[in-house]
């Protein structure tokens, strides 16, 4: 088994996290924004697994937490898509910039 140093894993997760943040802020399509959120979540999950494996190999909490995150992410994705569909029905549009009714 090839030994992968923890810094690699953390670098990957950091990269994923900030790519997600960047996408969340800059993309206009609501679906892309949702996908960016998934990236952020997965970066977190990856961190949990990595730290668990390298620092506490005897415990399994990190793994379970990652599983929880995946399932929550799935539920959240379903919810978000439902919301996006509802928005589309109302606005005929899923451009985040154009859905700005809730302002001063």
């Amino acid at each position: 088994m090839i030994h992968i140093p923890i810094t690699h894993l953390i670098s990957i997760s950091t990269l994923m996290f900030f790519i997600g943040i960047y996408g969340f802020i800059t993309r206009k399509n609501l679906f892309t924004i949702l996908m960016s959120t998934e990236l952020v979540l997965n970066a977190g999950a990856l961190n949990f697994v990595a730290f668990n494996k390298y620092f506490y190999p005897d415990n399994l909490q990190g793994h379970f937490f990652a599983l929880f995150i995946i399932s929550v992410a799935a539920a959240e994705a379903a919810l978000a898509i439902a919301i996006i569909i509802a928005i589309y029905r109302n606005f005929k549009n899923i451009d985040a910039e154009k859905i700005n009714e809730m302002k001063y």
Partner: protein
Amino acid sequence: MQFDFSYTIWIVLIPFLAFLFTGIFGGKLKPFISGLIGTAGLFISFSLSVITAYRYFFEIEKTSGAFQKIIAHNTVWLKFSENLHVDLGVLLDPISIMMLIVITLISLMVHIYSLGYMKGDAGFSRFFTFLSLFSFSMLGLVVATNIFQMYIFWELVGVSSYLLIGYYYEKPSAVSAAKKAFIVTRFADLGFLIGILLLSYTTGTFDFLTLTDTGGTAILQGSGVPFLGMSTMTWALLLIFMGGAGKSAMFPLHVWLPDAMEGPTPVSALIHAATMVVAGVYLVARLFPLFVFSAPNALEIVGYVGGISSLFAAIIACTQIDIKRILAYSTMSQIGYMMLALGVSGYGGENGLGFMASMFHLFTHAMFKALLFLGAGSIIHAVHSNNFSDMGNLRKFLPVTHITFLIACFAISGIPPFAGFFSKDEILVAAFEHNKILFFIEFAVAGLTAFYMFRLYFNVFWGKETHYHSTPHESPFTMTIPLIFLSIASIGVGFIPFNELVTSDAKPFEILTHWDIAVPSVAMAIVGISTAMLFYKKENSISTVVVSFLGKFYRVALNKFYFDELYLLITKKIVFRFISEPIAVFDKKVIDGAMNGIAAITNFSSEKIKGMQSGQLQHYAFAFVSGAVVIALILLYLIEK
């Protein structure tokens, strides 16, 4: 024989229940039913008072020759500490029982009278509700066991008087009269309250029994620290007297009483002639031992205020033409008599003649003055005018009113054997023995009283032939029955032996008839009556000649010595301009300004930053992330350190 007097609480409570009932259900009942409820309630109260008086004066045993003071009921109402508590209760002693009789009797008569007088008025039910409220407050006032209870009911009679003066609230003059009465008496009550606080601070009690116990601590411990040349006790009693002077319309706080005649006439009879306005006299009588022993100079001031008021009012009464206003000034003058009698009185036995005379005059005055007002009401009812220039020769049209009014005029002028003679004579004797100046003032006022009453009488019932639009007719029997009853009382009550019942130390004493004073005073009254007869019985020009002879003095008296103008000057030019207006400016600029400033700043800053709420999801996300990053950096920095 001992009696349980605890039922006397119902004398007070029944009018209160009548007030609550007619007040709550008055809109649903037929107006006449509300009137009957109030009248029936007062009738029960009156019967109970008579029973109480009979038992108290004739059946219970006296302790060492004096009527005992009985606490018939007591409830600790507000308990602040062991020593400081405000009670509500019923105190029975000669003066409170006498007042119970006066109030319930006059109130009952006025209730019956009003059933006729107010008939068909839109606010009939409201009127009776307020009458019940007033009767309750006044009864609560006289049976008060402590000065604080008295103050509470004092304010209640003030407010019921306000409500009843302003009964015709569509009339601006009635509204302003009600306001004037309330503000003037309220101003005086400020003095009363300060006086109560000073008094209870010095003596450590509110309780009347402790305060007026002649062997008790309140009187024996002295009068406290001197302040501005007078002892604390003198100040306290003078301030309390200020409250009394305000309620009793004594000079110079009298300005509200003539205007209070804007109220319905039965109200004037009940409140502004017989009961509420004598509350001040009652207050001084209640605290009488304190006045005599701790502050004799305050008592002297009471006497002079009474004397000045009675002369002042009698002079004005000779010039007015509104019959109710004449009666109002006459009330003020007669209350002046009572105050004066208290002022010249000492304590105990013969010395207390003035006290007894004052209470006696209070009693007889209530009868004949209520009769005069109810008679005036009957005249106004028939003629629909208050001014006697619109009247004349009414004796043909109103026979009952005419005879009863004449009896009342004789009674107030002090012609024997009518009631006023006896009480006024006692007052003159008391004044003669103690203070000659006051005696001569009162002697002159006795003549003036006879003159202005008969001036009124002759102008209304004799005088010129007047053409009336509709022929005046005698009032209905609900109105004439009280008139007849009160005229019998005005003849009879003079024979009540007050010297055996109501005296300063509650012990009976002998009085002698002083013919040397009685004869000149009756002669004075007869001179007054004959002058009035000469001037006004037939239409002639003597009175105009006299008026032009008096010239300026007549005009000054006609304008009530310019007191209203003086008050207006003081309030408008001094109080409003130099106190109220700066306060108003302070209120507008500083208080309101601070609040408005805060609001303006909030508004301004939110205008500026509202753009941040753009509705753009990603702007919020950016702000959130950058905030998180900043916090993370700060934390990193702190941990590094």
